């Protein structure tokens, strides 16, 4: 049986990728950022996942405004790095895991999450920067990757609650895959930042720290947070953090926070990073039987609210 053993959240600031590609990581400005990921790389090297699921967003690279899928799952055998206007990043081609990806698609769609299946896709810094931060800059990425692209560019993105529940459905899918695989799931983007309009440059460290705390301890509280609050408190583009909730939803209710890092700024953005591990030997069957009624209750709540709104 495949299983998700840990979750990683990390910012995916494009300037971090540029600093790596231009060999500026040793400069004091960048050293402050990269030093925060040394332990993470060590953790990843020891954890040796068989597959990584990377929840990220595309930045007008693979998807323009011609079509905008809310959730797009990469089922291809490989995903080349996109040319984002500066030439493709000099990183290895990302190898997929088409069998597990197809299995996840089939399972979560029947669980009522209407994913778009993508069989040809280039991936941009949103995916490759967190990979560099956790895997370094190897000749080949050490494990296959399943990209899950979430629309957070065109408002409205999926709600935090929807993302969290999708995480749960992904976990269920992974656990029903027959091959014995260790899976790590990434949530990327954030933390607080605004890069558009006269309010650009907004950073809210207090919000970010509380978000990191709750990601470990009380993710359901975060799942209830409305988009308006993200945009007001964490900047228009800070809404990317809903993607972290897909990752969190795929983990146990109780997790161990094994590492955390936070710094301001990288370019326009607050950099946040956390590693959460499922507790070893946590009863899997118990959690499963608990989660089903919760999905039902959540659906019921939504229905009531919609009724009140006269929908």
């Amino acid at each position, binding site marked *: 049986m495949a299983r998700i053993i840990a979750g990683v959240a990390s910012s995916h*600031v*494009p*300037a*971090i*990728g*540029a*600093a790596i590609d231009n060999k500026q990581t040793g400069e004091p400005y960048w050293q402050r950022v990269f030093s925060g990921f040394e332990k993470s790389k060590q953790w990843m090297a020891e954890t040796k996942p068989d597959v990584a699921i990377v929840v990220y967003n595309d*930045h*007008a690279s693979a998807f*323009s*405004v*011609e079509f*905008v899928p809310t959730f797009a799952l990469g089922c291809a055998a490989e995903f080349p790095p996109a*040319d*984002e*206007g*500066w030439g493709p990043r000099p990183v290895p081609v990302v190898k997929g895991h088409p069998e597990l990806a197809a299995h996840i698609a089939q399972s979560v769609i029947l669980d009522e999450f209407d994913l778009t299946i993508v069989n040809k896709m280039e991936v941009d810094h949103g995916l490759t920067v967190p990979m560099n931060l956790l895997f370094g800059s190897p000749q080949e990425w050490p494990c296959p990757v399943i990209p899950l692209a979430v629309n957070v*560019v*065109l*408002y*409205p993105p999926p709600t935090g609650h929807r993302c969290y529940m999708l995480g749960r459905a992904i976990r269920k899918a992974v656990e029903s895959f027959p091959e014995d695989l260790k899976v790590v799931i990434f949530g990327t983007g954030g933390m*607080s930042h*605004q*890069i*558009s*309009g*006269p*309010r*650009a*440059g*907004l*950073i*809210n*460290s*207090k*919000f970010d720290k509380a978000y990191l705390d709750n990601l470990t301890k009380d993710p359901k509280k975060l799942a209830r947070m409305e*988009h*308006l609050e993200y*945009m*007001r*408190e964490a900047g*228009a*583009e800070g809404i990317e953090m809903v993607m972290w909730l897909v990752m969190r939803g795929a983990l146990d209710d109780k997790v161990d926070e094994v590492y955390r890092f936070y710094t*301001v*700024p*990288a*370019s*326009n953005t*607050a950099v946040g990073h956390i590693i959460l591990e499922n507790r070893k030997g946590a009863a899997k069957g118990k959690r499963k039987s608990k989660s089903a009624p919760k999905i039902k209750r959540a659906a019921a709540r939504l229905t009531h609210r919609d009724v009140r709104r006269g929908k």
Partner: protein
Amino acid sequence: MPRAQHDYDDIPGTFVFDAERSRQGYGINMFCMSLMKEENRKAFKANEAEYLKKFPLTPEQATAILNREYNRLLELGGNIYFTAKLGATDGHSFRHLAATMTGASQDDYAKMMLGGGRSVEGNRSKSGRDKPAPKSAKAKSAKPKAVKSKAVKSKSRAKSRSKARSKRG
């Protein structure tokens, strides 16, 4: 038809790229996407006004592109990840564009970011009807750097365009 009002229109200095703006700004964003290709960047630079004729743009959208009015482009339906490609064509990084949109000089903007960024205090709401969450209300250090609501003037644009840099991020 006037634009429908939304709760997020109350956030100062922010143009949320919603479905309505996406519809309105389709031409802007598709123009920006075309700049992903080197031959298109060259063709655009060779004759900007002529190149723009290939896209469904209103006269005010075309003018905003020619004048590099980045805030106006957001207001007219452009999205930052797309308009950043126009900036990149001029050799400007994301941070450069962000500074331009705030109306600050590049140096002042860089200093603000190194100092922890723009504070959220004083920048949550235009109407003031939104109160910060009780816990964060005690943030006393806050020296509000309120955003300027006026659009960036084309003068500063001309200056910033002249010193093209080839940096990302």
